[in-house]
């Protein structure tokens, strides 16, 4: 099925499907049979795919349309209507800045700008090395701890603009340590 879909793409589109995306799509092909064929289950199906792979590759939408026997247009319509769905892979450290009322009043916007400046990406984008992605969310339910930012799974409370540097440094240090650990292991294994 996947090869069929790929064959239907034009040159540039096919080139855009890199090795990683191909893997994801292959996995989706394997997962699909477990899903319901009901059109009413469209949203849960998309949620499940995104939950597993972090995003919805374009061709996955085509596969889902085929699976529930509906038009591609309908699946695109749904996927774009709901804010939850994303179409490009998130970074390994997804950063979500809360811009709910309480966080907005406490300068959430400024935080977002600081992240943009520090990471050199705009909101909605993923860094080239896939390390970070930046998003805005509307209230994560921690308003009394505003402004709040979600880094990966962790909610950071009372984030002042100067904490932005610390948050990123923490991730960098963690990566650095992991890399060193890895190198050590590799060395001992040799």
């Amino acid at each position: 099925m996947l090869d069929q879909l790929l064959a239907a793409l034009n040159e540039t589109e096919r080139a855009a499907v890199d090795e990683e995306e191909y893997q994801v799509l292959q996995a989706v092909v394997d997962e699909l049979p477990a899903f319901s064929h009901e059109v009413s289950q469209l949203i849960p199906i998309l949620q499940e795919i995104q939950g597993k792979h972090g995003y919805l590759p374009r061709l996955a939408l085509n596969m889902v349309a085929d699976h529930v026997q509906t038009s591609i247009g309908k699946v695109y319509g749904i996927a774009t209507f709901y804010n939850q769905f994303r179409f490009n892979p998130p970074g390994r450290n997804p950063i979500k800045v809360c811009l709910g009322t309480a966080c907005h009043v406490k300068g959430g916007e400024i935080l977002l700008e600081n992240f943009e400046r520090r990471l050199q990406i705009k909101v909605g984008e993923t860094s080239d090395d896939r390390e970070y992605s930046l998003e805005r969310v509307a209230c994560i339910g921690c308003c009394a701890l505003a402004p709040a930012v979600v880094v990966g799974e962790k909610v950071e409370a009372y984030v002042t603009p100067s904490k932005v540097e610390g948050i990123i440094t923490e991730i960098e240090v963690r990566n650095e340590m992991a890399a060193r650990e890895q190198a050590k292991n590799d060395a001992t294994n040799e």
Partner: protein
Amino acid sequence: MTQQTNSPKEHLLVHAERAKERVKELKESPVPVIYVGCATCGRAAGALATIAGFEEVLKDNGIEARIEKVGCLGHCYAEPLVIIQNPGFPALLYQKIGAGEAGILVRSFLKDGSDPCYEYLIGALEADENFPTLMDYPRYLYENRVVMEHCGLIDPDEIDHYLAVGGYLSLAQGLEKGGEWVLDEVKSANLRGRGGAGFPAGRKWEIARKVEKTPKTVICNGDEGDPGAYMDRTLLESNPHQVLEGLALAALAIGAERALLYIRAEYPLAVKIMERAIEQAREKNLLGDDILGSGFSLEVSVFQGSGAFVCGEETALIESLAGNRGMPQPRPPYPAVAGLDGLPTVINNVKTLSTVPSIIRNGHQWFRSIGTEKSPGTAIFSVVGEVEYPGLVEVPMGVTLEHLVVDVCGGIKDGKELKAVQIGGPSGGCLPASLMETVIDFDSLKSVGAMMGSGGLVVMNEDTCMVEVARYFTDFTQGESCGKCTFCRIGTRHLRDILHSITIGEGKMEELDDLEEICEAVIKGSLCSLGKTAPNPVLTTLRFFRDEYVAHIEEKRCPAKMCRPLIAFYIDLEPCARGCDACVACCPTDAIFTTSNRKKAIDQEKCVKCGECVYACPPEYDAVRRVSPPEMIPDQGVKPLSETEKEKEESK
């Protein structure tokens, strides 16, 4: 094992007895029990690190203790919250317990029982002569916790904790007396929907009960889309079984066979906790087939919303359940008549359903004795913003805003002035200090242009710009409009654009009239309440804070000094301390430079007006100033340190 003749209540009592035994074991534990608030908010404040801290120090000191994860008490200002039940002491509530404090508590209090660490103590849960008790605090004294009674005190992952405090007894009673009786109780109680509009739940249920088509559905609306409210999340995370019990009672009252919990995607923990709760209730036959041997069956499942505010609207919610784009539909037909799959569907808010078990337990007369004649019961608010004690509060309907903000939540922080209270989120309004005597109930709030809405309440002080708040909400509703109605889609965009131009100092006076006109049109031309109420933040701020709009337009001045294009920062050379560079390190754009007299100044070209330097400057110098309009920066004759001087400085 169970006999045919056993009534639902008898069935339940078997579970309840066992649960009580287990909880008694916990309450009378010979080793200390440490309860840690682990709802989303607690975790955000570091509750999991607190637990790790406890575990480590307990182990190092060879002390045995039990750690229990509980939900949220709603005292957000004091998170992470910990309750310690140390044999020989009353249960004590502590605030702001991080890993470090956890260690101190273990060493000073649990190890030798000598020092209960008064410095972190809030008080004892029960009256005690040696300790202050919670009732000594206004928060506890004025609150009337009906729905939140057990929140933060029980483990949401343990159905036994709920059963031990009388959980599911109302359901058993309902099953014995029948759906009609449950319906009558809720109707007589005049329970009004807590999801915003205040429609009587009993009336809605009655409509659905009368329609003969089956299967019927009840849906718990946990979409909580107001971007500044979180009480539904807290109820789902802290007392999930109470929601399920209310859901089952509603199903019984209308004769529904299926029930759904619609929970927004941003609440993953709530989803997890609810799914587990459903499983546990099913195991005990409190949900599923032939509940407690009554013959009544109910299938419950969780559906995750996908992040669209409009899906909180009931017809849009149903559309999204059916796998469509969540667009509101014209009513009638009302969902109670023709909802999911064209069949009768009752949709109630989390709080509405959570209130039901207490009504069945205590009777409608009891319920009507709380609150006001037209709005009986309690109201739950998330009070956030500039108050001393932000958090979740449950007060009887009919108290004033003043009471809620000042008495219950400790008033405005840092001795500042209250400017406005934003109530009801994007559908609500901003009420000025002069309206703080307004009574909190469905009808009074509407009469002043606000709305109970979701129950989100943001308290604002003089540093918050009302034009900016109106712009913020309009930007939000504009982004969330489903686009079906031209007036909602285009009108909100116009509103947002005008408000935006005002906040950047490009507004014109005649646009104020335009705003009002567009608001009128949007109200008239919108199908659902998203559009109909979207103008509320604009209209209330125009009405109560018109002078702020005028200042932005005519003087290019933001009175709250919040709108960044209209403000500037500078350093007052007089108090700025020579040799200090606290502000330099914090500036994200390196905008602060050293002046020729070795003080600091801000390069306006580079400054992005983040305000960090204001906080970084030590209070004893307090040298950074914020002004509006930007031309207010005085000429202090600052010059950067010359290159040669800089070199000299560096070589030192």
